[in-house]
């Protein structure tokens, strides 16, 4: 923030702090399957929060607080800035990685997942986008509708998307998550291994429960 305000050069990790940007999102005006305006919204939220946290830090020190005191008074805002920066980084890496996938079938479903991710995360952080009018409530509704559309579109691929992680039943160690789907028979079989089932009558019955019933 300091370097950005002083016009110094910034590394690619934080270049978005000085990147020219629109005042309002174009999220509902994107051509089909182009979610670049979504990524710009992540940048907007991160940039705004970083600069706001920075300005608040300066304001606290100008009121006579020491650097450490001002930092502590501003820590929640600073953490929010760090989170938004990181969520931007994750979104960018997801976006870049999906666009390198060659197999058309995989790429198509990964794009659906990516678009779901971008909508879901931006809806989750909408506060930062609505606050200064960067995003309108209509655009927020547009993202919600797009998210619901993507849920329906992804639904038939749901099981195959988890199958693709290729976990064996041994690795997963989950009766509920068995690859063959035969959950209920195995749930009963698993319960039979319980130590409490080694005898029909537990010692606690003779020791405590039976005397209680006779009291």
């Amino acid at each position, binding site marked *: *923030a*300091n*370097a950005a305000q002083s016009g110094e050069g910034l*590394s690619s990790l*934080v270049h978005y702090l000085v990147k020219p940007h629109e005042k309002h999102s174009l999220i509902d005006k994107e051509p089909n399957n182009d979610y670049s305006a979504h990524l710009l919204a992540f940048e907007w939220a991160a940039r705004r929060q*970083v600069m706001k946290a920075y300005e608040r830090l300066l304001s606290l020190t100008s009121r006579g607080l020491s650097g450490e005191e001002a930092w502590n008074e501003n*820590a929640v805002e*600073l*953490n929010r*800035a*760090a*989170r938004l*920066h*990181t969520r931007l*980084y*994750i979104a960018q*890496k997801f976006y*870049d*990685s*999906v666009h390198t996938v060659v*197999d058309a*079938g*995989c790429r*198509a479903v990964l794009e659906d*997942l*990516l678009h*779901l*991710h971008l909508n*879901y995360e931006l809806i989750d952080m909408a506060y930062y986008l609505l606050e200064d009018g960067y995003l309108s409530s209509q655009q927020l509704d547009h993202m919600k509708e797009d*998210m*619901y559309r*993507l*849920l329906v579109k*992804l*639904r*038939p691929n*749901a*099981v*195959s*998307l*988890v*199958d*693709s*992680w*290729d976990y*064996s039943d*041994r*690795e*997963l*160690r*989950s*009766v*509920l*998550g068995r*690859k063959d*789907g035969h*959950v209920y028979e195995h*749930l009963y079989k*698993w319960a039979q291994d*319980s130590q409490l089932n080694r005898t029909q009558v537990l010692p606690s019955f003779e020791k405590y429960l039976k005397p209680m019933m006779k009291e």
Partner: protein
Amino acid sequence: HPDMAEERRKATFDTDEMAAVIWGSKKYMMRRREITKKVEEHPELHDPYSQAFMTREEGVENAARKATTMIRMLDELGVDPLQFEDVFHLTNEVIGIAGHPLALHAVMFIPTLQAQCSDEQQHWIDLAYNRRIIGTYAQTEMGHGTNLKKLETTATYDPKTQEFVLHSPTRTSMKWWPGNLGKSSNHAVVVANLVINGENYGPHNFIVQLRDLETHQPMKGITVGDIGPKLAYNDTDNGFLSFDHYRIPRLNMLMKHARVAPDGSYTRPPHAKVGYSAMVYVRTHMITHQAMFAAYALTTAVRYSAVRRQGEIKPGCGEVKILDYQTQQHRLLPQLARAYAFMFTGRAVKSVHARVDKDVAKGKVDEMAELHYILSGLKAVVTHLTGEAIEQARMSCGGHGYSKASNIFEIYGVAIGGCTYEGENMVMLQQLAKYLMRA
């Protein structure tokens, strides 16, 4: 199962192709399957019964049995111990995620020695690599976690004997939490404040023998033991450790970067962050591991949601799969998207780490700090969101998700351990914030 078969018929993509995308290549996907098959063929690598029914002692013993059997069988299994990814997958198959006595030896002890030993200290790497010694990494103290500056353990140099005297001056200075420190390890890389002629040079790494190699009894001047049961990861003996004026030779300070000469003169490391290499290494791998934890829980939740039927959407049409409810889709699919996002991000950051690591070895440390900061943010955000994802997966399984039969309890417990180990998340965010304010 007809419901699962129906689900698999509906897919619009090839799951083998996708597995190759997830695991980096078709070759490695096949390799994973080979390892899975070999483990299946060897009953001595299996659990005698579900880990969920084991007491802690049974779990620790079972993990030790499987870990040592697995190591002895590496040749037979055709697994090269130098192939990190193969060993990682083999370990997940055989041991699972609740830990084992050599867990920290492989992921913290050896990488730290590799990153911090000078040329004349390479024998430590050989000893560790050949498992002649068992080690861990002991940094955190009972009263001091992430804040390295406030560690209390001291290593005071005595030029007369050319030794460091390790000492724990207070109860809060006791090392507390390091995995495998309590009962398994006989050596540890210990982080202590270097003191020469009364001057404190800050935290440095020292290799310290904790237990006799024959009897496994603690060395004189060492107090060591297990800290007790935890939320999860109970097959690992997280430990406590304190020193009572315990002496180690000068060359037991890891001197690749900072050095202390026999006369006590000190040479600074080229960059303040090089001592953090072990942490940076672990955080790099944590991102993909967290993606895997989320994917474990979501695999269970999505599959179960495809066979569990409840309620009717259209009267008379029969009970529907719970995965057909919008709320269930909204609960699971965005979390699944996150698991994929974290996996891709983890892979991207691993490749940055590999490049930076090579640069650091050549003395070029420019990108190390930037990597350290973004990993701090990633570690905090990803562990937190993974915890959320696993909890959503658990609840989406209804009551059965609460049963240990789902194994989600262990996945959750192990994954959210990541919110506090390797740096508590609030502190991690503050570290990234510092960088952002400067930028």
